[in-house]
């Protein structure tokens, strides 16, 4: 296939153009705005699908496209200073592009139903288009700098969308909070980019990988720690901010103030996934900086902590928000324990089912006009399609076999188990693994609790129940949900449901995910063998003959320490079995509590009372940040600075300067009057004298000017002629 | 010299021999004298012919209008009243030459002559037949457009010099109309120049070999539209109905020649009628194949001249008839409509045609529509 500007750029440009066009249309033809937006993202989807088909056609873990153009070239002699921008598509980007465009298309379509009648309906689509194009630009980027640009662009869109209902004060505060919290991570991210630029001299992925394999980071120290650790940590801080990891997870639950489709798109499927995507891209750096343990701990803590908070939430969107944080924690845990492939797979599967869950929640909220689960109940009779879709997703997120969550999450857990028990690393990874498994127990519980409270049992609020109408199949309401629900089945991601090849559906490609997504550390050498090409307007045919189609090899997708195939296999089997048991008991517990009323939910609550109080306050994180750090720390510091500015600097430096100035001014005043003014007057006098003479010529009569001109020419010719 | 009318006749051996023998008999080279004589004879003949045509134009106008209005028309002087124009001419010449008080004498006399000068100058290049063309200028088409604009000055001055409101208004309208409509005319002609690659009438005509499908009007869709643009704009340039605002009887009495009488009025009228002939003749030469016999039949022979002349006059008189027909069929336009048609319709269409012709030249290598269909 040909990879040129014309075939790749539409993915990014179609939504961007839709945004630009909508900026005009929003005033001229508001009715067209949603159609243009949907058209833009659907066009992007088709182009992305084309690329995906091409990558599936080659089916090689080595295959990648890197094309760039030079934005500016300030090279001076031997100092090379070039800014290259370009596209970098490998198997991971291709899958990611397909996921983002697909999910975004469905969310766009859903939004036309959900947002119908909103006063700022058109503006919503404006933001959605811009956001989608930024996300796609991020995925296509071949360097950290353009990733950072799109990253910030997404941050801005997120800010706008969270504060979309800015009439509500909470929405405004939430948008501010999200923006400011992620900014903390972004500062570190930028610092990391600078550190990498300093060391490698480039921010291109391929250059970075090449530099890492050549050992460019070796022996480089900064602030007493190795530069690789520093850079990796900074980049990972970007992930912490964007993907809402501990300790910067506080913004995501508040972000639920935004409209539900935007939550689905931004805070579940794409933007938060961008953080994980970044960490996956920079995985070699994280490994080189020996940050695996830190990453694993943060992932484990996030996965577990968020899951515990999700249990007691009554707001349907809050449950989903915490579950999102928890699942992102799993991905990060996966990165930490070296489960590269599974972490990315979980990113994709999670994007699909979490988008579906959010859209379904949106469908419910739109139907009953409340977000409180205690007021719902029994809705399955009315919202049939939503109910089906939501159950599929719940089973997927819970990790029930045959669903996608099982394939991805349980591989992460298996890898965590392997690292903790069999890799011979002692007790380093024990706690993350335990936290992960407890989280795996909690996940089905709170998800099923949400389902039972919402759809099952008797209607608790007659008014709410009656308000809800029977659901009909509508192309922009529940069809997107059902499409997404179909893709929650594990069969699309792995032909073998336990991860080790039982069912061969897609001929020899039934483990396509595992084969295609391999860690860059495994294949680092390839970036030096395949030449980079300039990005052209058209043409750009890629020679694919040099890539051999990968035969199916039993690859683990594991990139962590102490790889041992046999033991890993055992660990996976154990992990799968353990999580199957855990899920079974978890669902059973939920059913006992909320369907059969066998156990009163209040009892365990009383039993865990102190902990429940902590959970209720979200582990005091908000209090810590706002009341302690900001109010007691930063504000006091601020006041001290203000005092210094007013009391010291203003009084002595500024006022003192005024005294000096006054003396000078008196001196200069005298000079001005006696010397300068006199000479000015003299000049004026001279000018006046000359003026009266010259005035006769400057009469304003054009013909006299002409005569003067002629006289001048005559004089000149007489001068030159004789 | 070779480009003038004598050059054609000197191609034939017997004339050349006759001149050579005459020269040897007298002892003086007669070639130059032959050129001059032929030129003078041709000029006088064409002028006389065209003056007659102009005069007959008035007769034709009256007769045709009568026919259209179901009247009989002039029928007293000569058979079918055909000598009416002579009678009119004699009447005009014998009338008193009145000049209004306060008129600008110099310009009042000059204006009709400028008009008639502008019109008659065009005959220098109009090809009546292969031989009967006073000069075959390389820039004949350009020359024709340029010199014809003198008519506008004449009309304007006539209107100004009369010291009459009707005349002044008519003159200003006329001048504005003429310089406006010159643009679509020029651009339409330019598309033909583009196709043929020459500014010479003879070469343009020789490129259209006589059969209608070879005519430039059927060369491509753009020239087909271009012909009508040229014809309509030409109508306006001659101040003919429905564009006869400068002499609108109901508004301005008689426009720029209200105050003129006698022979000067006659000159104005003659100029107008002959200009119609010129516009028709130019349209015929550029778009309708000119004097060419089908398939260049008898091309370059002396015997073909009368036939060619007949064909040219036939086509021209047909267009002449159409012009008169239009006059008695359509109502007059309003002044703003007049300018709207010129600037908002004809000029853009003409420019479009020009660009279209250029594209046609590039895309189809200059082949005509018929060629593309047949080959």
């Amino acid at each position, binding site marked *: 296939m040909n990879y040129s500007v014309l075939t790749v750029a539409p993915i990014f440009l179609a939504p961007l153009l839709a945004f630009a066009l909508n900026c005009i249309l929003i005033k001229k033809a508001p009715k067209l705005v949603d159609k243009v937006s949907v058209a833009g993202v659907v066009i992007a989807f088709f182009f992305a699908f084309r690329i995906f088909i091409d990558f599936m056609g080659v089916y090689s873990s080595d295959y990648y496209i890197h094309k760039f153009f030079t934005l500016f070239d300030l090279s001076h002699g031997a100092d090379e200073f070039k800014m290259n921008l370009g596209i970098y598509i490998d198997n991971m980007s291709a899958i990611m592009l397909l996921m983002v465009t697909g999910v975004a298309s469905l969310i766009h379509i859903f939004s036309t139903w959900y947002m119908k009648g909103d006063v700022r309906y058109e503006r919503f689509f404006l933001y959605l288009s811009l956001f989608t194009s930024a996300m796609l630009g991020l995925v296509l980027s071949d360097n950290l700098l353009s990733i950072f640009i799109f990253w910030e662009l997404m941050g801005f869109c997120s800010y706008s969308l969270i504060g979309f209902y800015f009439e509500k004060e909470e929405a405004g505060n939430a948008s501010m909070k999200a923006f400011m919290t992620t900014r903390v991570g972004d500062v570190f991210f930028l610092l990391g980019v600078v550190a990498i630029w300093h060391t490698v001299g480039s921010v291109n992925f391929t250059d970075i990988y090449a530099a890492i394999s050549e050992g460019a980071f070796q022996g480089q120290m900064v602030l007493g720690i190795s530069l690789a650790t520093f850079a990796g940590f900074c980049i990972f801080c970007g992930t912490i901010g964007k993907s809402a990891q501990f300790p910067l997870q506080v913004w995501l639950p508040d972000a639920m103030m935004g409209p539900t489709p935007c939550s689905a798109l931004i805070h579940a499927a794409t933007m938060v996934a961008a953080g994980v995507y970044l960490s996956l891209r920079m995985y070699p750096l994280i490994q080189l900086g020996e940050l695996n343990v830190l990453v694993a701990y943060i992932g484990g803590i996030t996965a577990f902590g968020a899951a515990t908070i999700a249990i007691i939430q009554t707001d349907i969107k809050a449950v989903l928000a915490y579950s999102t944080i928890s699942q992102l924690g799993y991905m990060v845990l996966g990165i930490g324990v070296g489960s590269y492939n599974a972490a990315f797979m979980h990113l994709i599967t999670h994007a699909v089912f979490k988008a579906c869950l959010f859209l379904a929640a949106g469908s419910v909220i739109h139907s009953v006009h409340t977000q409180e689960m205690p007021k719902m109940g029994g809705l399955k009779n009315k919202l049939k399609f939503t109910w089906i879709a939501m159950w599929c997703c719940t089973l997927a997120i819970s990790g029930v076999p045959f669903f996608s969550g099982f394939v991805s999450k349980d591989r992460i857990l298996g890898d965590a188990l392997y690292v903790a028990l069999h890799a011979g690393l002692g007790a380093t990874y024990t706690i993350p693994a335990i936290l992960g498994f407890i989280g795996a127990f909690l996940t089905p519980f709170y998800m099923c609790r949400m389902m039972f409270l919402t759809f099952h049992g008797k209607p608790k609020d007659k008014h709410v129940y009656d308000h809800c109408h029977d659901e009909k199949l509508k192309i922009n309401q529940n069809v997107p949900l059902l499409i997404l629900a179909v893709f929650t089945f594990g069969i699309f991601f792995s032909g073998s449901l336990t991860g080790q090849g039982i069912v061969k559906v897609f001929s020899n490609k039934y483990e396509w995910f595992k084969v295609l997504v391999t860690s860059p550390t495994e294949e680092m050498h390839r970036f030096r063998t395949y030449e980079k090409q300039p990005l052209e307007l058209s043409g750009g045919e890629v020679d694919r003959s040099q890539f051999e189609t990968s035969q199916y090899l039993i690859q683990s997708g594991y990139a962590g320490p102490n790889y041992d195939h046999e033991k890993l296999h055992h660990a996976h089997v154990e992990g799968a079995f353990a999580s199957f048991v855990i899920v079974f008991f978890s669902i059973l517990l939920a059913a006992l509590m909320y369907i059969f009323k066998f156990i009163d939910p209040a009892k365990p609550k009383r039993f865990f009372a102190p902990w429940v109080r902590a959970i209720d306050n979200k582990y005091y994180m908000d209090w810590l940040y706002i009341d302690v750090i900001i109010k007691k720390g930063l504000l006091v510091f601020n006041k001290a600075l203000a005092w210094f500015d007013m009391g010291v600097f203003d009084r002595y430096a500024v006022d003192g300067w005024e005294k000096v100035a006054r003396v000078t001014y008196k001196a200069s005043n005298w000079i001005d009057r006696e010397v300068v003014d006199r000479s000015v007057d003299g000049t004026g006098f001279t000018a006046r004298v000359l003026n009266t003479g010259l005035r*006769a010529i400057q*009469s304003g*009569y054009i*013909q*006299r000017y002409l*005569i003067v001109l*002629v006289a001048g*020419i*005559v004089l000149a*010719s*007489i001068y*030159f*002629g*004789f | 010299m070779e480009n003038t009318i004598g050059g054609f006749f000197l191609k034939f051996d017997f004339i050349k021999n006759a001149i050579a023998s005459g020269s040897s008999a007298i002892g003086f080279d007669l070639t130059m004298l032959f050129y001059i004589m032929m030129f003078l004879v041709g000029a006088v003949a064409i002028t006389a012919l065209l003056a007659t045509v102009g005069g007959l134009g008035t007769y034709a106008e009256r007769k045709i209008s009568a026919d259209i209005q179901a009247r009989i028309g002039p029928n007293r002087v000569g058979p079918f009243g055909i000598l009416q124009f002579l009678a009119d001419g004699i009447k005009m010449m014998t009338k008193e030459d009145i000049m209004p008080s306060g008129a*600008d004498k*110099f*310009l009042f006399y*000059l204006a009709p002559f400028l008009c008639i000068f502008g019109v008659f100058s065009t005959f220098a290049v109009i090809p009546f037949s292969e031989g009967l063309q006073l000069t075959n*200028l*390389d*820039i004949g088409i*350009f*020359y024709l*457009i*340029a*010199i014809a*604009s*003198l008519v*506008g*000055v004449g009309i*304007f*001055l006539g209107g*100004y010099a009369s010291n009459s409101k009707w005349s*002044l208004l008519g003159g*200003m309208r006329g*001048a*504005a109309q*003429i*310089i406006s409509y*010159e643009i679509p005319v020029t651009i339409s002609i330019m598309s033909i120049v583009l196709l043929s690659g020459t*500014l010479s009438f003879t070469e343009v005509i020789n490129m259209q070999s006589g059969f209608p499908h070879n005519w430039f009007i059927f060369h491509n869709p753009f020239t087909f539209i271009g012909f009508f643009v040229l014809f309509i704009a030409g109508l306006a340039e001659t101040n003919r109905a429905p564009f006869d605002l400068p002499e609108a009887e109901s508004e301005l009495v008689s426009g720029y020649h209200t105050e003129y009488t006698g022979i000067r009025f006659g000159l104005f009228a003659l100029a107008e009628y002959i200009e119609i002939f010129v516009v028709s003749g130019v349209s015929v030469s550029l778009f309708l194949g000119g004097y060419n016999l089908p398939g260049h039949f008898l091309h370059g022979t002396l015997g073909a001249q009368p036939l060619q002349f007949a064909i040219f006059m036939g086509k021209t008189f047909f267009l002449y008839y159409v012009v008169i027909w239009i006059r008695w069929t359509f109502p007059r336009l309003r002044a703003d409509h007049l300018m709207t048609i010129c600037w908002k319709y004809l000029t853009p269409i003409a420019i479009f045609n020009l660009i279209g012709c250029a594209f046609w030249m590039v895309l189809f290598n200059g082949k005509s529509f018929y060629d593309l269909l047949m080959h």
Partner: protein
Amino acid sequence: MYYWILFLTSALLTIGSSVLMLWTKNLIHSCIFLLGSLIGIAGLYLSLGADFVAVTQIMVYVGGIVILMLFAMMLTGGKDFVSKRQKILDLIPLMGNKKSLIWASLVAFVFLLSQALLLMKIFSSVKVLDEVSAYSPSVEKIGELLITSHELAFELSSVLLLGALVGAAIIARPKKGRGN
């Protein structure tokens, strides 16, 4: 002989018209004499074998500029002015009457004289071709030159004309809300 007829007629027309143009008191007559002068110059061009330039001259001036001038005169009253403000004290007299005509002629004569003195040297050093080229049609060559070696000027002149067109239309347009 034809050449001499053409040349003398044209030269006479040019010079005579320009003198009359200077002499006449009537602006419209002045413009008509300009027309005669321009036609004379076109004749001179013809005598120099510049047929294309000559026809262009007639087309642009007769068909365009002169009519435009006449229009402008109509719109602005068409009267010539006699000076309103005369100050004897001024060194250089204002003009518009017979006296100023003499002055103008004097200035022009002095100018001509000085230029002649200056340029005589240059003219005398100019080497005139021994054999003046015969008349030959110039259209095709001019066209070729215009789109090859003089293309930039050609394009620039098109831009200039467009600018003049737009500029003239904007300048002459009456301001809205003014007058009525």
